[in-house]
């Protein structure tokens, strides 16, 4: 049986629910405008956001349209490996918590780029950080707005370009009007929507497929495993890839989430470090709940395709969750699932627009013209945010083909270029401007150039003109091993170059103690040999592991 999910005519119920989501979002943005009085309000909501609000906002920031569309497709293609990718993403929030979140909050910057500038006493690094931020944001963003357009076209019967323009302009409107207050309250609302719109349809899908534990989707399909193993015996096999793949996934997730500026920006909005900590715990619990539910969806999708003999073009794997919902739960739940996917898409796009606008005005323009006062910057912010929103919407009319792959690259590039200097800047006083520069540049080059060849130019990873490493990038998600080089290399260069350059100034070293909450200063804190030595040893071992064990696992790939 061949499945095609295209509608003849408009799916009225789905369109109505989606439009309600869009209208509520604009309403929240408009209402939030009255709360914005100054630059601090516009960029970081006056640092007034509480634990639950921030936690929920981060959930929808984390769970983009890829949760509804891309992950199910990835599981159909990658099986266990795809599950491991999102398992890494779930626990990455705890890495963000313990390595960065509360410390960044105490630093009192507005953005990641501002933190880099102040910690490394360098305007040039701030500008470089803005460039990296724009690259990763565009990779992350283009697919999401296009995803909204695809949802409108395939599922609602509305032309794709209309969906892209409507989705892009709605988000632009409420970000421009409401600033970070509008973004935060919208993300909170959208989190609640997507939690409901994902969990309930999946429970019904599992019920229809006969799962005994359908009422709790994350762990409710265990009794279906024997039948799955008869149909797809290798569904649960982790050894279809080289073991270094999983290390690369962890590195990319953990340091990528720290390096992605739109995640970090959320921590600048909370009241204090304690609220930053606990909001992240709430986030990881809810993100895990959703991700394990999507694992169930992926399982159900593969099971259903095998059971029904369903043959789909690869490009339509993205819609399996909707195909399943319509086939097994009915059109009412399909409409709800579509509305949830629209909410998911909007929330992530809003966060990215916010950081792009803030980066261009506060960090780039602010660096070049430091004499400009905050009120003028605020007025410029409105216009820049509008221009960025329109620009990104137009870019989304022809973005990269693979949404989730673009996002995974964004994680890797952000991790190697920004995540490493942030973590070392917080935990090792001896990290210098020169060390950070070496690590950031090397991390960016070694991750972005392969991305250009593989994602943008569409080359097979083993054919890229990068000597030594290309031969080892074979297999499912083979390109991801690039991250197992770029992140450790960034660490090695940051540490080694820091050792050979002058220590940071006194005020910068004091700021490290302040970030950790100390009222006094002691030179020996966060200034030992242990951390840098361990970092170098582990980094070298990870890089070396790419080129080893291939005889042992000759059957892999």
């Amino acid at each position, binding site marked *: 049986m061949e499945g095609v999910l295209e509608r003849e005519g408009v799916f009225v119920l789905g369109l109505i629910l989606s439009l309600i989501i869009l209208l509520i979002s604009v309403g929240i943005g408009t209402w939030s405008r009255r709360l914005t009085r100054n630059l601090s309000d516009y960029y970081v909501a006056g640092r007034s956001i509480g634990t639950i609000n921030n936690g929920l906002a981060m959930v929808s920031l984390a769970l983009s349209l890829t949760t509804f569309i891309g992950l199910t497709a990835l599981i159909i293609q990658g099986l*266990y490996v795809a*599950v*491991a990718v999102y*398992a*890494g993403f*779930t*626990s*990455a*929030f*705890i*890495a963000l*918590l*313990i*390595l960065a979140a*509360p410390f960044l909050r105490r630093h009192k910057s507005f953005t990641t780029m501002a933190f880099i500038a102040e910690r490394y006493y360098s305007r040039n690094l701030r500008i470089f950080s803005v460039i990296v931020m724009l690259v990763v944001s565009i990779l992350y963003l283009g697919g999401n707005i296009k995803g909204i357009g695809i949802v409108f076209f395939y599922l609602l019967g509305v032309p794709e370009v209309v969906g892209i323009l409507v989705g892009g302009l709605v988000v632009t409107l409420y970000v421009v009007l409401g600033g970070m207050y509008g973004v935060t309250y919208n993300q909170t609302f959208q989190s609640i929507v997507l939690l409901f719109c994902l969990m309930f349809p999946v429970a019904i899908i599992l019920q229809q497929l006969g799962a005994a534990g359908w009422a709790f989707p*994350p*762990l409710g*399909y*265990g*009794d*279906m*495993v024997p039948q799955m*193993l008869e149909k797809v*015996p*290798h569904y*649960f*096999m*982790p*050894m279809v890839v080289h*073991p*270094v793949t*999983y*290390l690369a*996934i*962890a*590195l990319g*997730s*953990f340091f990528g989430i720290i390096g992605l500026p739109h995640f970090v920006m959320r921590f600048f909005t909370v009241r204090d*470090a*304690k609220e930053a*900590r*606990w909001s*992240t*715990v709430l986030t*990881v*619990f809810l993100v*895990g709940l959703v*991700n*394990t539910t999507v*694992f169930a969806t992926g399982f159900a999708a593969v099971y259903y395709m095998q059971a029904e003999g369903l043959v789909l073009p690869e490009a339509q794997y993205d819609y399996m969750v909707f195909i399943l919902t319509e086939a097994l739960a009915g059109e009412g739940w399909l409409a709800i699932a579509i509305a949830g996917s629209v909410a998911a898409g909007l929330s992530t796009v809003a966060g990215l627009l916010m950081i792009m606008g803030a980066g261009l005005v506060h960090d780039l323009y602010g660096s070049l013209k430091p004499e400009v006062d905050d009120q003028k910057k605020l007025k410029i912010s409105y216009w820049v945010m509008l221009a960025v929103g329109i620009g990104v919407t137009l870019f989304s009319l022809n973005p990269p083909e693979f949404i989730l792959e673009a996002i995974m690259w964004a994680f890797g590039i952000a991790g190697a270029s920004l995540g490493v200097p942030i973590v070392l800047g917080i*935990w090792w006083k001896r990290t210098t401007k020169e060390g950070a520069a070496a690590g950031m540049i090397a991390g960016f080059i070694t991750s972005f150039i392969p991305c250009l060849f593989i994602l943008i130019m569409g080359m097979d990873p083993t054919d890229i003109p990068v000597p030594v490493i290309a031969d080892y990038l074979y297999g499912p998600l083979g390109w991801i091993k690039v991250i197992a080089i770029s992140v450790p290399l960034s660490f090695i260069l940051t540490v080694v170059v820091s050792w050979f350059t002058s220590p940071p100034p006194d005020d910068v070293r004091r700021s490290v103690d302040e970030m*950790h*909450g*100390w*009222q006094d200063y*002691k030179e020996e*804190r*966060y200034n030992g040999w242990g*951390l840098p030595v361990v970092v170098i040893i582990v980094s070298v071992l990870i890089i070396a592991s790419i080129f080893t064990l291939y005889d042992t*696992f000759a059957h892999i790939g």
Partner: protein
Amino acid sequence: MKGYRLEAWLTAISFILIFIFGGAISSIYILGIDAFFVEVNDLYRAVNYIMGFPQHYFLLIVLSWLGATLIGIIWCLAMDRLERKQKS
């Protein structure tokens, strides 16, 4: 133990655990293949099952979610306590 050392050690241990839970655990399954799998006609079946799921799959999804959350909670409680001491 001095406050900052306790903070650093607790963070390091938490990081190692979540690095394992969130990614490296799959590498451990491959490298310790005999403990988790039995070969059947060139494919591998799990030796043990939990709640119907292959043991390794169950551990991956539960540890990366609930395990990571629990580590986060413990770390936050410890940091809350440290922060109170820093302020006193």
